[in-house]
C-alpha cells in the first residue's frame, strides 16, 4: 500500500491531474447510475407517456368532430326530426361524451324506484358516471351509481342502459336519453 502511495506521489503532475479528471468523471457516472436506479423509469415512462399522447390526440380528434356537429339533440334512431347520427358518428360521439346531465339521470331513475328514492333522499348525489362503447354489441352504454342511506340501510345501486340520444352544445356532447328498460 505504502509502495502504491509513494509511486503515485512520484508520478508527474500532468498525469496525476489527468487521473483526477478521470476520477471525477467516474464519480459523476457512478452517482448518475445510482440515481437512475432510484428515480429513472426510462422506457416504461416513455411507453406510458406515449399512451397519454395518443389519448390526447384522440381527444383532440373527437373534439374537432363534436364542434362540427349541429347544436341540439342527436339521435341514433329514425323517426324523429332530430339530427340522425350515422353508425360511425354514433360511435365517435359516444367515445367523446363524458357528461350525463341530471335530466338523463332523472329519466333513467324514473324506471328504477329504489334508485330514484336514494337519489332524492341523499340530495341528488351521484357517485360516479360512465359512458362507454360496447364493441361487441356495437352500442353505446351509459350509467351511473347512486348510493346513500335509505331508512337506516346503506345501499348502492348501479343504473345503466343504452344511450340512444345525445345533446350537442357545440362545445361538448352530453347523454340525453338512457334506455334502461
Amino acid at each position, binding site marked *: 500500500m505504502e509502495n502504491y502511495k509513494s509511486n503515485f506521489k512520484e508520478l*508527474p*503532475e*500532468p498525469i496525476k*491531474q*489527468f487521473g*483526477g*479528471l478521470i476520477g*471525477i*468523471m467516474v464519480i*459523476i*457516472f457512478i452517482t*448518475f447510475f445510482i*440515481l*437512475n436506479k432510484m*428515480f*429513472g*423509469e*426510462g422506457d416504461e*415512462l*416513455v411507453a*406510458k*407517456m*406515449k399512451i*397519454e*399522447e395518443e389519448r390526447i390526440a384522440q381527444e383532440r380528434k373527437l373534439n374537432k368532430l363534436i364542434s362540427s356537429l349541429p347544436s341540439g339533440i342527436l339521435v341514433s334512431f329514425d323517426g324523429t326530426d332530430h339530427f340522425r347520427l350515422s353508425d360511425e358518428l354514433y360511435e365517435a360521439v359516444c367515445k367523446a361524451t363524458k357528461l350525463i346531465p341530471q335530466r338523463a339521470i332523472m329519466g333513467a331513475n324514473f324506471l328504477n324506484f329504489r334508485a330514484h328514492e336514494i337519489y332524492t333522499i341523499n340530495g341528488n348525489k351521484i357517485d360516479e358516471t360512465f359512458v362507454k362503447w360496447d364493441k361487441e354489441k356495437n352500442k353505446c352504454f351509459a350509467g351511473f351509481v347512486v348510493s346513500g342511506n335509505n331508512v337506516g340501510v346503506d345501499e348502492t345501486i348501479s343504473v345503466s342502459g343504452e344511450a340512444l340520444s345525445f345533446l350537442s352544445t357545440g362545445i361538448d356532447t352530453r347523454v340525453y336519453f338512457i334506455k334502461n328498460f
Partner: protein
Amino acid sequence: MELFKKYPKLFQWIFLLIVFFALCFAIDVPETYKFIRGQAEFVKDPNQSTFVFLGKEVRYYAFDVFWRLPPLLGWLPIWINDSLFFLMNDWMPMEFWNEDTQEYKTRPLVLQITRNLTAFMTFLIELIREILLGGLETIVAFTSWDWIDANPWAELPGLPWTIVAAGSAILAYKLGGRGLAIFAGLAMTYISIFGQWKPSMQTLSFILVAAPLSFIFGLSLGIAAFKSKRVEKALYPILLVMQTMPQYAVLVPALVLFGVGDHAAVIITMIVAVPPMILLTLLGLRAVPPEVIEAGRMSGCNNWQLMFKVLIPTARRDILIGVNQVIMVCFSMAVISAFIGAKGLGFNLLLALNQLNIGLALEAGLCISLIAILLDKMSLAWANKQVDYFGNLNFFQRNKNSLFFGLIMIVGIALAYFGSIYFKGGYNYLFEVPHNKGISTADFWNKGVDWIFDTFFVYIKAFNTWLIVEVLQPMRALYLRMPAIATIVLVVGAGYLIGGTRSALVVCGLTLFIALSPWWDRALVTTYMATFGVIVSCIIGFTVGTLCFQNKYSTKFMLNVCDIFQTFPSFVYLIPVMMLFGITDTSVLIAVIVYATIPATRYTIEGLRSVPSGLHDAATMSGVTKFQRLFKIEFPLAFPHMMLGLNQTIVFALFMVIIGAFIGTEDLGQYILKALSDKKGAGIGLTLGICVAFIGLIFDNLIRTWVDKRKKHLGID
C-alpha cells in the same frame, strides 16, 4: 507522448470535450420530452411520479436520469412558501395595541414587525414627497385633520420646481463646478417643461429614502465585517449571491412580506443596494495603509475615534464610490419596483411599455436617465472632492452656496406667487408643470417608430427571421439537447482543470442546485440567451476597446460613453430595441448585447491601460511593430483583466436576459415574472432567482480562479 508532456492542459481539455460530445451523442432525447414543461409549471399529470420530502409532495417526470435529473429540490419553493405563510399568519401571535380602533388586536409577530416597518418607510417617503410636491399626510401624522382645519396656514404647498432646479444647480456647482451646474440646471428644467416633474419627484423621494438608509446599513455592516472575521464569513455568501441575483427575483418574496407600494419598493431597493455598499466599505477600509492606522494609535485614538476619525476619512473615496453605486442601484430599482406598485417615472415607463407607446416610454426613460446621470456625476464629484482643511476663508466665501440658495428660495417663491396671479384660473407653470401638460415629443417618436416600421419593415423582418431561424433556434436546440450528465461532466471537469478539486466541488454544487430544481431546461434557455449575448458583446467590446485604446482621446471618449451608458437603468435599454424590432427575442438579445458590451469595452481599455509603460518602451526599443506589440505583449498581459470584463459581461447579460422576460422570452425570467402574479409565487421566485445567481456564480468562479492563476503566472498579482 512528447506532445502530451509539452501541452498537458491542452490534452486534458480535449479529453474533456471528447467525453462531453460522446455523452451528448450517446444519450438520446426521450420521445416524450416535450412534457417537461408541465413539471416546471407544477402541472399535475397522471404520468408523473411523486416523492415526499419534509411533508411536501413533489411531482416529476421520471426520465432517464442521465438525460434530466429528477427535481429533488422541487420541495424547496413549496417549503419557502409554506414557511413564509406560517411566519406571516401563525407564528407567535401576540396582542398589539391598535391606535385606530383603540383596542388590543392579536397579530403574528412577523406580520406586526413588517407592518411597522412599512409604516415607517411610508412616513419617510411621504415626508420627502410632501416637501417636494406638497401634501398634508405628514403634518396630519403628528396632529389631526381637525388641527389642519383650524390652522389653514399649515397647508403648505411643495417647493416650486424653479427652487429645486436652481438648488440642484448650486449643489452641483459646489461639488463639481460650472459644467455640472449647467447640466443639473438644464436637466431639471427639461424634466419640468416636459411635464415629468411630479413622477420625477416621486421617484426622487423614493431614492432619497432608499439611498441614505442603504448607505447607513451598508456602512455599518461593512465596518462590522472589517472588525470581525466571523461577520465577514457570514456575509460573504450572501454578498456573493446578491451580486449575481436578478433584482426581479427579490421582488416576489418581498411582496409577501411587505405588500405592495412605495414602502415595499424602498425595502427591496435596500436589500439590493446594501451589498455593493458593504463590499466597497470593506475594500476601502482594507486599503487603509497600516502606517495610517499606526499613526492613529500613536496619537492615542480609542477604537471609536480610530474608526470614525482615521479609517473612514482615509477610506472616504471608496465609501463615496459605494454611495455612487447605491444611487445607481436605486435608479435601476426605481423601474423594476414599479412592478410592485412604486409610483413615479418607473411606473410611467412600465405603463408606456405595456401600452407599446414608445414615445411616452422614451420621455420617461430619458428623465430617469438624466436624473441618474446627474446624481452619478454629483456623487462621483463628491467622492473626488478634496476637503480643504487649511483654507482661510471669510464668512461669505464659506457660506456663499447657502446664501445663494436662500436668495433663490426667495426668488422662486416670488416667481411662484407671480405665476399664481399671471396664470389665474389655469395651471401655475411657475410652480409646477402638471403631468401631461408640458411639451411632449411622444407623438413625434411614435410617428418615427411607425415610419421605421413602414420603411424598413421588410429588412427588419428578414433580419429577425434570419436571426431566429438560422442562429437562435439551432443554438437553443443545441443547448436543450445537452444531457444533464454531459453538462455536469463539462462544468465540473472545467472547474477541476481550472482550479483543482475545490473549484470542481464549488461549481458542481452550484450546477447541481440548478439541475435538481424543476427548471433545468429553462436555465439552459437562459444560459443560451446569455451566451449568445456575451459572445457578440465580447467581440464588439474587445474590438472597440482595442481600437479606442490606440488613441488617448478616443480612450477617454469611450470611457465616458461607457460611464453614461452604465448609468442608464437597465429597463431603458428595452425602449430603442422595441422601437426597431418590436416584441421578439431579437429585441431582448440586442438589448443584452448593448448592455453587456459596456463592461466588455471598459475592461478591455482598462486592461490594456494596466500594461506597464516600461514594457511598451522595452518593446519599442526591441523594434517590434505596433501589431506585434499588441498581440505579443499587450494582449497576453491585459488578458486576465479582460477576463474580469468577461465576468462582468456575463452578469450584465444575465440581468438583461431576465429583464427581457418583460417583452417575452421563455427562460427563467418568464417564470419569475409569472411568480409575481402568483399567490404562491414567493418560493418559486426566490428559488428561480437563486438559480440565475448560481449560473452567474459558476462562470464567476471559473473565470476568477483562472484570472488569479494567470496573474500569478505572469507575475502581475
